[in-house]
């Protein structure tokens, strides 16, 4: 651990030492109600809208690609795919209500796919030109693994994807177009749910004792803080550690999400930035007593460290894990996510008087 920290200090430079924090601004505590209101208005709804918009663009780009296949239209679709991956990264940790209805989280991104179940199913659809995968309703009835971003990544970037720029890829394109339509449909449903009158947004912002989801501000705050704590854990366990070298085992970059499209770290960055925004814009770390006011800076300091580490990981993931400096930055990113999880899940929770982080919300 000490060696790793030394490396991290080397790669990150001297400017991140804890003692070099800027002077703190005057302390302005906010109320839990304001935190909940801002979380929805400033972060959740805008990020959901961003996914809706990007998904619509991807849907149109796939439609254009299938109508007029070419290298250019394929490049546009691929670029639009990247925008959706980033937009999803910024909301993937919002694992409450709408994202958990109808298996949407798994249908949008079935990951990890430890035994390559999804990949095998996608291969089978392409090999047999399964027409039922090109109708939205029947695709939605299939395995979650063949109807979301993982499947579409294989269509656009996997073996044989070059066929998409010509007519010979017509079936593959129609399947991809149907997946894009499915993603857009789910993004639309998420938007509807988050904007529905008397829906989750108002319940989260203004909890009432007779609501079935959030009865008190404490319960709503627990949910909000839990999202970040658990989101950090998921990022680390599902999207970083899974492919990194550890315990004398070599790195396995093909276990990285979105390795084919080289969007692994873009997704991680969107995830980190989304969680940072949720904490910062909601003011969650300002709804504490003045004795705890240092938490806000501590948390943002660690988020900035995570982003600095991400800045250093510029190579595709297969090359990054083989590069000493970039592999060290990855390891440091893992350390920081652990530190952030502890600060938010334990220290911030305690400062807010929440029970998140122990038996209540990470059950067994």
């Amino acid at each position, binding site marked *: 651990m000490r060696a790793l920290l030394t490396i991290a200090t080397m790669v990150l430079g001297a400017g991140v030492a804890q003692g070099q924090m800027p002077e703190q601004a005057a302390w302005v505590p906010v109320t839990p109600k304001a935190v909940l209101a801002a979380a929805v208005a400033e972060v959740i709804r805008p990020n959901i809208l961003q996914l809706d918009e990007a998904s619509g663009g991807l849907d149109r780009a796939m439609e254009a690609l299938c109508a007029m296949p070419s290298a250019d239209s394929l490049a546009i679709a691929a670029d639009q795919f990247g925008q959706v991956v980033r937009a999803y990264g910024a909301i993937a940790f919002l694992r409450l209500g709408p994202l958990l209805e109808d*298996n949407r989280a798994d249908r949008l991104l079935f990951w*990890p796919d430890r035994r390559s179940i999804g990949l095998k199913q996608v291969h089978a659809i392409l090999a047999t030109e399964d027409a039922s995968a090109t109708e939205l309703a029947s695709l939605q009835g299939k395995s979650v693994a063949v109807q979301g971003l993982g499947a579409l990544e294989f269509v656009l970037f996997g073996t044989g994807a070059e066929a998409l720029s010509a007519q010979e890829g017509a079936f593959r394109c129609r399947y991809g177009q149907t997946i894009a339509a499915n993603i857009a449909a789910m993004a639309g449903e998420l938007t509807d749910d988050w904007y529905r009158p008397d829906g989750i947004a108002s319940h989260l912002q203004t909890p009432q004792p007779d609501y079935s989801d959030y009865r008190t501000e404490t319960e709503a705050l627990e949910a909000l803080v839990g999202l970040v704590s658990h989101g950090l854990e998921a990022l680390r366990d599902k999207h970083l550690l899974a492919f990194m070298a550890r315990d004398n085992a070599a790195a396995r970059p093909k276990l990285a999400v979105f390795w084919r499209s080289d969007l692994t770290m873009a997704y991680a960055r969107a995830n980190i930035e989304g969680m940072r925004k949720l904490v910062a814009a909601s003011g969650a770390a300002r709804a504490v007593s003045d004795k705890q006011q240092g938490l806000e800076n501590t948390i943002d300091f660690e988020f900035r460290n995570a982003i600095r580490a991400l800045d250093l990981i510029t190579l595709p993931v297969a090359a990054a894990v083989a590069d000493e400096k970039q592999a060290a930055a990855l390891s440091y990113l893992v350390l920081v996510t652990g530190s952030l999880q502890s600060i938010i899940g334990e220290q911030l929770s305690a400062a807010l008087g929440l029970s998140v982080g122990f038996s209540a919300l990470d059950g067994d």
Partner: protein
Amino acid sequence: MWQRRAFLQAAGAGFAASLLPRQALALDASELVFASAVQTANGSYGAVLLGEAGELIAGIALPDRGHDVTISRAAGRGVVFARQPGTFAVVFDPAGNAVPVTLTSSAGRHFFGHGVFSPDGRLLYATESDFEAARGVVGIYDATDGYRRMGEFPTYGTGPHEMLLMPDGVSLVVANGGIETHPDYGRAELNIETMDPSVVFIDRRDGRLVGQLRLAAGLHQLSIRHMAIDARSRVWFGCQYKGAPSESPQLVGHASMDGEIALIELPAETLVDLRNYVGSVAASTDGATIAISSPQGDLLVVIDAAAGRPRLVQTLRSGCGLAADGDGFVASSGLGEMIGLAGAKRAPQRYDFQFDNHLLRVG
């Protein structure tokens, strides 16, 4: 009841002495009644042994977060299991005469947090994961030979969680939660769409499947996790629902070795307050009532086992641990509280540690 002896001279003394030195004097006069995994005030993990009045008798330091505790009077030992996907189990001497021993799960296996001794105390059974194959196993350990792992048999499902010994002393009942996890991905749930929970009865002598019970197909996302046995040898179970949060399926039911499995009808308002989550299940001393808890909903429910109807609903913030106590129950919480419930004559107490999900009453 366990008789305490020289606990302070044993390895557990460090924990007891450093955590709450003023409690050490209570050791000689008290008897061990409750055990639970905890998180201490400084964030470290351990297990505590409590007396009848709730006084701290001793603590056992753990390398990481524990989950459930099992104790065998015949073996003269207790075991704290790591929370899934942990790889350790700590064997301790409740009398404080022997140094705790840490077991490590074998290669390719991790613990699920629960286990049970054979009636004669010679064997320890633990629910474990054969994670490469995504199948549950029962690890068998020889308590007479340093807890050497003798072998294993399948749980006939994925993600086994709590395991109990049936009153016949021969059958094990295992709750296969149905959820696949793999240590490469931490606690991430890998098969929510296709999960397949079940209750299984296994003959512990040869690992033979005696019976496997599943709920209706539409309830395949209802993870069966925790259990207790009533006066009629029925196995009461509590579930955690992994489907859409807007749905509120029934969460509590019972199964029997006769092959029956059924969910009971809890009122809609109670179900809503359980938040699709039951964290532990306990039976009263006479087996006539069953208590369930939801730390997510801050709710405790006591059920008349014969009638299959709730008798009492009570709130306890972050309440999860449950154990029989007098005519009722005692409940513990993730905020360090312990209260009496449903007729138990017990004043509420608060500790400077947080209770984990399960509270064991030492028989």
